[in-house]
């Protein structure tokens, strides 16, 4: 399928942006898949991302759903390889090198400096997804409630998300 090459290009590029977590790439994920390539609508992307939060494993496996959506099972496979192979090879190589660089003074500077930037990227990703997911006071309240419970109790979020699905089924149809 002629969508496979753009899928590879988009998702291998996105993988390079995931410093600190998958959420960091969300603004660019939205721009490329929704605005540029029109593979999904913004609300479809948010739905797939949110379903992905319930799946086990690395929290960006929702990319496989986008691949499946665009080009079937082959699309899912291609997207997953494109997303994990380039950064995986980088991690393998740098990981071996990094251990040998334990005494290099800039190593600590790089780790320390990228810490706050990765938090900023995570928050930018949250803002980006929030713009689509928070559509009124009801969704805002639901979101704030989940945030509050997780901050205070540090419980497993899965039951909360299931509860939100039930609330949504009654409140938002």
């Amino acid at each position, binding site marked *: 399928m002629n969508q496979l090459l753009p899928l590879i290009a988009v998702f291998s*590029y996105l*993988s390079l*942006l995931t410093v600190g*977590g998958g*959420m960091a790439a969300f603004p*660019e994920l939205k721009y490329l898949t929704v605005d540029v390539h029109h593979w999904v609508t913004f609300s479809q992307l948010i*739905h*797939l991302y*949110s379903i992905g939060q319930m*799946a*086990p*494993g690395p*929290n*960006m*496996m929702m990319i*496989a759903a986008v691949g*499946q959506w665009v080009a079937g*099972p082959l699309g899912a496979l291609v997207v*997953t390889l494109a997303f*994990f192979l380039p*950064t995986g090879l980088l*991690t*393998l190589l*740098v*990981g*071996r090198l*990094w251990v040998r660089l334990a005494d290099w003074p800039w190593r600590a500077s*790089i*780790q*320390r400096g*990228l810490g*706050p*930037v*990765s*938090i*900023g*990227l*995570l*928050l*930018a990703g*949250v*803002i980006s*997804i929030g713009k689509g*997911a928070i559509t009124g006071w009801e*969704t*805002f309240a639901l979101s704030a*409630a*989940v*945030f509050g419970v*997780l901050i205070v109790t*540090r419980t*497993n*979020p899965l039951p*909360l998300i299931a509860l939100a*699905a*039930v*609330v*949504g089924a009654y*409140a*938002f149809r």
Partner: protein
Amino acid sequence: MSDVSAPACEPEGTASLPPPSVLGIFLVFLSIGATSFGGGVVAYLRSSLVGRQRWVDDETFLELLSICQSLPGLNASNMAILVGDRLRGTAGAAAALVGICLPGGLMMVVAAIAYGATHSRGNVVDGMLHGVSAAAVGMVLAVSVQLGLKTLTRYADLVFVALTIIGVEVLKQSVLVVLAVVGAMAIFWYRPGGAPHKGDLFAGLLPAKAPRPPQGPQSSDDGKGGGPGGAA
């Protein structure tokens, strides 16, 4: 995501065990990939790899995690690669990566098919997804804030966070450009001989740490509190 505050594991002998087979590595990561519901895969990795399997000790685990946090790629998949590589080289890394991604990936393919089949029909499904999306925003924000309280230890960090958000959300720059520009500024700020790395900006807000296993060093607040810079 990267919730390091997993139940820490007892540091008894690890190094002397023979390394596991590639198949063994695959199966262990497959089971983590299939059971790590609710985010925080790193915590599941820690309790399995450090606790049950004893493939790495806790110090090594945190060291590898700090490498992951400064590299592109998800923490969960990068940790799988680094631990797999330590155990069985490149083959081990590949086995671990495939194992941890496979279950969630298959589930998401099934979810995409189901989503495509049901989406046009019911507004009940639509309503559920609407609720789940709102909850997901709260969940991701909570994870970011918890990580932020540990990572941001000096006022300068807040400036770098703000610059990053402004670059992406206000100036609409590509994440890559913002990462390169603000990242370079922050690394230069914390250059060798530059600004001190440690601080206690949110020390008062950090939870006094709930269930801590009785064994192990009690001064774990220093050990865990550093975030990505902690292992420096």
